[in-house]
């Protein structure tokens, strides 16, 4: 039991906050529960029936008491709600400067794709002290990404991106579980997260023999699947210019405006007709069942890398841990060659 407890010792910033809340609830609820139990046991013993014909005072109720024990718990509950909700917002909202890693889940393995093109199966290496954001999708059924030591969990859905983030605070090897039942080998869909000191992490990164960054593979795909035939980067032609698309508000034919986040871009590729950009007619082929989730991730990384939209933060550079941590990370050198990073292109 002791080693188990150690294993779940909080290893991320959120986990520490989490434990505060959790143990506070244990104290409050435990206190009330012990109080109730004590009262019940005391009554049961102290007022134990003494004679067969005993008739106790017939007390019917008390408005004062009723109000007290409705309102006081309510107030306590509201406190729990507020604290729980604020923690949830911390857990759910990744900071803008987080390093991105793409996760593709399938029965029954986790595949991680780093921006520098490294791939790992059932393992994930992350630096200590820096926020990491995972952009996750599933190839088949629903899975759930769960790292107990970080106190985070997020279902991974097919046909959609969900994200989770954490900031490891202690180097170590932590369990990664699949927490949503996903078929026969659900309990085998486990792995490890290695949180490393930044120096070691940099070393680990440099040893990776990647065939090129994720975005550059994406660029190859972009040509291979003929995207480049239609989508030009000079604003010419009958197709939208994809430069700076990421996080830009896009006006649709329906008059709605949507923000071009990961899910939107993904949908635009697999199901172009779903949302059509204003001013264009849709004749883009449907890439559903043509591209694998891995390829989609590569294309996505590429599209995100080709120039940030004006005025929005670019999450992280393609390829490596942001050199200037906390500063304004731009496109670092490892981005695909020949791609303009001109940020001033107006829509």
């Amino acid at each position, binding site marked *: 039991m002791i080693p188990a407890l150690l294993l*779940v010792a909080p290893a991320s910033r959120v986990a520490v906050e989490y434990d505060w809340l959790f143990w506070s609830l244990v104290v409050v609820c435990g206190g009330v529960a012990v109080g*109730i139990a004590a009262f019940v046991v005391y009554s049961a013993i102290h007022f134990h029936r003494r004679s067969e014909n005993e008739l*106790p005072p017939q007390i019917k109720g008390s408005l004062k008491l009723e109000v007290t024990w*409705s309102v006081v718990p309510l107030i306590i509950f509201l406190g*729990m709600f507020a604290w729980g909700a604020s923690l*949830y917002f911390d857990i759910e909202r990744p900071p803008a400067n987080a390093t991105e890693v793409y996760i593709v889940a399938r029965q029954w393995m986790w595949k991680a794709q780093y921006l520098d093109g490294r791939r790992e199966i059932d393992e994930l290496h992350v630096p200590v002290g820096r926020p990491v954001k995972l952009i996750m999708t599933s190839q088949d059924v629903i899975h759930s990404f769960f790292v107990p030591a970080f106190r985070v969990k997020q279902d991974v859905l097919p046909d959609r991106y969900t994200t989770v983030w954490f900031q490891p605070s202690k180097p170590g090897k932590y369990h990664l579980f699949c*927490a*949503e*039942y996903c078929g026969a080998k659900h*309990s085998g869909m486990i792995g490890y997260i290695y949180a490393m000191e930044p120096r070691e992490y940099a070393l680990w990164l440099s040893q990776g023999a990647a065939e090129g960054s994720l975005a550059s593979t994406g660029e190859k795909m972009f040509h291979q699947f003929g995207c480049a035939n239609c989508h030009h980067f000079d604003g010419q032609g009958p197709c939208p210019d994809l430069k700076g698309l990421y996080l830009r508000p896009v006006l649709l034919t329906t008059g709605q405006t949507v923000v071009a986040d990961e899910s939107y871009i993904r949908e635009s590729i697999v199901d172009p007709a779903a949302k059509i950009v204003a001013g264009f007619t849709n004749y883009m082929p449907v890439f559903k069942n043509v591209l694998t989730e891995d390829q989609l991730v590569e294309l996505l990384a590429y599209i995100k890398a080709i120039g940030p939209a004006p005025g929005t933060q670019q999450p992280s550079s393609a390829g490596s841990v942001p050199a200037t941590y906390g500063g304004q990370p731009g496109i670092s050198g490892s981005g695909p060659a020949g791609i303009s990073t001109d940020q001033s292109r107006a829509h």
Partner: protein
Amino acid sequence: MTPVAEAVTVERNYLNQGEGILSWLFTLDHKRIAILYLVSVTMFFFLGGLFALLMRLELLTPRAWLFNPGDYNKMFSMHGIIMVWFFLIPSIPTTLGNFFIPMMIGAKDLAFPKLNLLSWYIFMFGGAVTVFALVRGGVDTGWTFYTPLSTTYLNTYVTATATGVFIAGFSSILTGLNFIATIHRMRAPGMTWFRLPMFIWTHYATSLVLVLATPVLAVTLLMMGVERIFHVGIFDPALGGDPVLFQHMFWFYSHPAVYIMVLPGMAVISEIIPTFSRKPLFGYDFVAYASMAIAVIGFLVWGHHMFVAGLSIYSAMAFSFLSYLVAVPSAIKVFNWSATLYKGSISWDTPMLYAIGFLGLFTIGGMTGLFLAALGIDVHVTDTYFVIAHFHYIMVGGTVMAFLGGIHYFWPKITGRLYPEGLARLSALIVFVGFNLTFFPQFVLGYLGMPRRYAAYPTEFQMLNVLSTAGASILGVGYIFPLCYLLWSWKYGKKAGPNPWRGTGLEWTTASPPPRDNFEVSPIVEGPPYDFGRMREELHLG
């Protein structure tokens, strides 16, 4: 309410009126139908329990040593499906509810006796289909049938099982309908709403949920079946559907369903505690309103099962907030039950032991529900053993305890015999100890991060799992005891007399076992429920 002071021995009662198996299979008597249900749900309970034992055995070691993981998945799926739909949901309402709702309101029968019998047949048919699926090879969806796993990826008997559950759902609906109509229209003269025993109020609330939630389960399973059979998209994203919609619809039913499971338990407790404290239920009105509030607000909180499923965070906030609201009426009830004990004349008969057990375990289960309802906390413990422990505390520690308590409490009325008190107290103790040993370690496991539905697990979780398995075997013994001595006492127990506990309800004014029409003379109600003060007059007279 004229209590029968002396035991009026009625020669003919509902048990001996009509002989032979056919007189049971075609009976329209709510009491006999209750017995039919009792036999059926008991069988399903032990079947579900058998799966639980096998599961616990498997979890003794970190490796999958007894079954391969696929078979383990079938174990928990069949365990959950049978326990929820074929044991716990029908357990109290169709047995004790069926038997005692008409008696407590002074009616001859339910409003629609034929419908009542039909419900049982539908239930058994649904059960038969499910058991058929089980013997043919089982199902491994989990009791939640999440898509697209269930519709596209599994090749077990998903459709057959879902059909069984679908069918059983209609039995629930008809039972609920029958209860509502009965409680509205069949009360004896003088039995006003605020003279109803709390048992009735709470069953009324339960029936509301049964009637309004169950159809949604039916239609959800229907759509799931269509998708699975015809390979057309409703919930599968590969076919254009949305799996989260399935979860919305499933939990729209299943959260209210957890109140279907606990409210009847509360109904029983609200009878036992006054009787064995000889005091009126403290804060009667508030407890009545609390039951209704649980039934209504219980419909607004289903999203708390989906906090990490891809729900919008704003929606999640609303659902979390509402979950806390629905906990308030439960709190009111716990406090009122406790207050009823205060200055009472408390006897330690077996039903009361179960009731006290219920109080403690339900409180723990409910409070851990508060943990889960806190958004941030749920993220870590959802889909771990923490959730498993939470709901077993409420469903097993709460409702099953209440069920056992209720069976003991009403046993003399149902059979006319007393059960052996000493043995009964002993097994209540065994159940309590075994239960806590089984499920308390699971809270810790959950906090440590052990996911649910795992056939194999990392070694550091073993110690707690061994404790839990040990507890489960004690618990199993604790359940087999009552089965044996209750059956024994049906034949050989001491004769009970009409009112062994000196209860105040109408059901205690008639003979044990009651005559076919429940009462020799149709009762007229003149006073409030739980009127123990009458005892004084009785004593003066006697």
